[in-house]
């Protein structure tokens, strides 16, 4: 006990994230449901439009962000529900790690989870919608990562708030989606320009706003998180 020293904020956050990923790796329930949803949605959107009116490449940005937002919600839902089942959250709260590190750990776990989904979704999107492989797709992947940071920051906070309520499945999208709008709006604008073969400089103003939203959401949600745990 005397030799023990609790890990710092980021050390503890990594422990929490690693634990969450280990649980997801064992159960794979959220991963498969998010993945199946993403691939099915890509298929449906592909066949729902007349190709002679709108080319697949022009539809791709919109489809990408709709699929991404809703598959993210499926992943975020499980983030705190795994803590609620046997009140694992209490064990975290009585441990000497800070509340902020719990939030950051959950957010990192969610981000890695969503990155794993995108690893399959983005190539599938490129395949279905005949997108140029190479630099544009790499830039789109970077934009997706930036947007994911903001989505995860907001979604993790609201997942913690919603989990104790009776209508958690309904409440999380209701709370999160309005906050996703500024992120998705900027990310979609930047993606449209990148996939439209426009110079990167044209996307840059949208990306700057996206980065600003990421910073604001990460800081604000980290500071707000401890209050969501009060009974």
């Amino acid at each position: 006990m005397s030799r023990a020293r609790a890990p710092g904020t980021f050390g503890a956050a990594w422990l929490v994230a690693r634990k969450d990923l280990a649980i997801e790796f064992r159960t794979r329930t959220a991963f498969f449901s998010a993945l199946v949803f993403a691939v099915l949605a890509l298929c449906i959107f592909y066949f729902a439009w007349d190709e002679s009116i709108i080319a697949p490449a022009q539809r791709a940005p919109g489809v990408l962000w709709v699929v991404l937002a809703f598959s993210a919600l499926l992943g975020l839902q499980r983030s705190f529900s795994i803590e609620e089942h046997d009140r694992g959250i209490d064990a975290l709260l009585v441990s000497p790690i800070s509340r902020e590190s719990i939030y950051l750990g959950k957010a990192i776990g969610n981000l890695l989870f969503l990155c794993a989904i995108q690893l399959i979704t983005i190539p599938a999107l490129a395949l279905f919608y005949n997108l140029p492989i190479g630099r544009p797709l790499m830039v789109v992947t970077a934009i997706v990562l930036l947007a994911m940071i903001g989505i995860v920051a907001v979604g993790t906070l609201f997942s913690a708030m919603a989990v104790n309520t009776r209508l958690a499945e309904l409440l999380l999208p209701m709370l999160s989606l309005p906050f996703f709008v500024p992120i998705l709006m900027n990310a979609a604008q930047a993606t449209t320009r990148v996939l439209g073969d426009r110079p990167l400089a044209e996307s840059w103003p949208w990306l700057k706003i996206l980065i600003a939203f990421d910073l604001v959401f990460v800081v604000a949600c980290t500071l707000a998180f401890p209050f969501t745990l009060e009974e």
Partner: protein
Amino acid sequence: MFPTCPAVEASRVRRTFGRRRAVDGVDLSLYAGECLALFGPNGAGKTTLLRLVAGLLKPTSGSVRVCGHSLREDASARAHVGLISHQSMLYRALTPRENVEFAARLYGIPDPRAAALNALERMRILDRADAPVRALSRGLQQRVSIARSIVHEPSVVLLDEPYTGLDAAGGAALTDMLQLLRSSGAALILVTHNVDEGLGVASHAAVMLDGKIVRHDDCATVEPRTYIAQYRELVLRGAEHESSFDVEATA
């Protein structure tokens, strides 16, 4: 030699939920090596008091200190506390070893794997260390939960109905563990409905009714049979008082 300041000190602690006073002005002092058995009917406020001491709840008024620290203000001081709840606080997809090792890492124990295996061995569940928790019975899960709570050798152990679901071997392992913790200087608060069991382990006994501690005894001075009879009477009188209050209120 145990430290002289109280391991747990609660002063005029009150906690309300809406208009309901779950804990109402409780004073408590518990020193190292002491064990307080807390009895009371359902809804008396025992679990709320335990959660206040653990720092999981914020008192509406009054203060709670553990080893001289307020757990809500000093995160590192939470390392003094081990909490055993009636919910297992385990992750079912992980194994007992992974659950306890994760806890050991949160407390910064230098060799978390060895500490985890040691704690599981003390709770006599080492042979199931690598089976998923979801495959274990309620009693075995409770043993893992106890191992997880004591892996960092806390100075204050809070136990909420720890004997629930344990078989004779599990109960004996827990009683041995509690005696060992006491002799090593840990202070224990044991919430239980089983008065006999509580008196067997505790140095002090208290009864809670309607959020208040209405009786506090030194276990050395009480005779278990008499105590149980008096406790039952106290609880029944409390229930009668509550129902007469309800009648008055509706009238």
